[in-house]
């Protein structure tokens, strides 16, 4: 009996310790960010592997999500004779919710898991300790550029996702279902607010980018230096990122739109 309680306590202490390590790690990363502006080529390299390589995925998923929204929205709205509001429905659901959230989930799967595997492998092959031996701070040299690149990429990817999604909704709504294109755009423009909707969506995606990259990098940096440990850390990245994105999305939505 006492052993169960003890293992529960150990588990609790372990989780808190990990959480504490994650925050120390975050502070160390943030401290490493200002120095990056002197060597921005490191960030550009990471923007390529984190951002540019995710664009295709984001483009295709955004287009399909927008097209599905167009179809589903039309079927619902046509019952009320309000199919002209399709543009509003597509644009608001994309810029407020689906753009930031879905692109962050895809980003966690595409870029986050790659980051964890990369850092974890660097750790297990002792490249990180090797850098420390050469008096190069791996957090400044390896981790911080990836962190900054993740934060920069995420809002850009979410914006591309939303823009392509609106286009997809328009293609289906106007091209396939015959919604009037003037009404589609004008209703959308009348009801979508630049600050209320679009800026809040951008804020969401910046937060998601920060959290996903943080989780991914920490999991990699904290992984057990074995192939099994790296595999587990990669799984944890995707799972925890998804939890963090969806949970934070609720909190942010409540703060932004829950008047």
């Amino acid at each position: 009996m006492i052993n169960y309680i003890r293992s529960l306590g150990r588990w609790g202490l372990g989780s808190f310790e990990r959480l504490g390590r994650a925050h120390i790690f975050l502070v160390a990363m943030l401290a490493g960010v200002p120095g990056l502006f002197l060597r921005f080529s490191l960030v550009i390299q990471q923007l390529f592997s984190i951002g540019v390589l995710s664009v295709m995925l984001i483009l295709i998923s955004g287009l399909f999500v927008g097209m599905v929204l167009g179809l589903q929205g039309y079927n619902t709205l046509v019952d009320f004779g309000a199919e002209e509001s399709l543009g509003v429905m597509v644009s608001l659901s994309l810029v407020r919710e689906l753009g930031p959230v879905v692109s962050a989930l895809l980003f966690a799967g595409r870029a986050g898991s790659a980051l964890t595997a990369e850092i974890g492998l660097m750790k297990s092959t002792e490249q990180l300790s090797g850098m420390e031996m050469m008096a190069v701070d791996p957090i400044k040299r390896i981790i911080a550029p990836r962190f900054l690149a993740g934060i920069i990429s995420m809002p850009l990817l979410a914006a591309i996702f939303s823009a392509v999604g609106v286009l997809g909704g328009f293609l289906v709504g106007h091209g396939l279902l015959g919604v009037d294109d003037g009404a589609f755009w004008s209703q959308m423009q009348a009801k979508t607010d630049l600050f209320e909707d679009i800026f809040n969506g951008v804020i969401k995606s910046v937060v998601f980018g920060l959290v996903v990259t943080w989780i991914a990098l920490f999991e990699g940096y904290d992984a057990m230096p074995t192939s099994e440990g790296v595999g587990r850390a990669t799984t944890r990245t995707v799972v925890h990122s998804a939890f963090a994105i969806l949970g934070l999305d609720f909190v942010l939505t409540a703060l932004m739109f829950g008047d």
Partner: protein
Amino acid sequence: MMQSKSTEITVGMFVAAGIAALFVLAMKVSNLGDLTEEKGYQVTAEFGNVGGLKVRSAVTMAGVRVGRVADISLDPKTFDAKVTLNMYPQFNNIPIDTSASIYTAGLLGEQYIGLVAGAEDESLKNGDVITLTQPALVLEQVIGQFLYSKAEGSD
């Protein structure tokens, strides 16, 4: 060298595409054009009932948007709703005896203020009050009145 150059080019294209997407969202999807309207003049109008009118609802004249609702508050003395209208500066010759009514776009749509021009030569200025107003049509009241008149008529 070649590798890093092409990397830089694609990253540049990525950043440009992201910013372009944000720009498209701002210009094409949202009402960015309405944000630069702060300079106009403000007039107030009191309504018995504003119904579902909201701040930023449209103010139209003959169907053309001439301003936006800037503020809605309750007059502490008359207990009427005091609506502040922010009028666009180019519509500076609206007669002072213009009347304002609250209409609904479609059966269940957004509510907006419709202005009907008066005949006076003097035009509305900043701080003026529109006195001729007609409150919002509240659907429940209309139905209630309709049922009431039906019941009376059947006697």
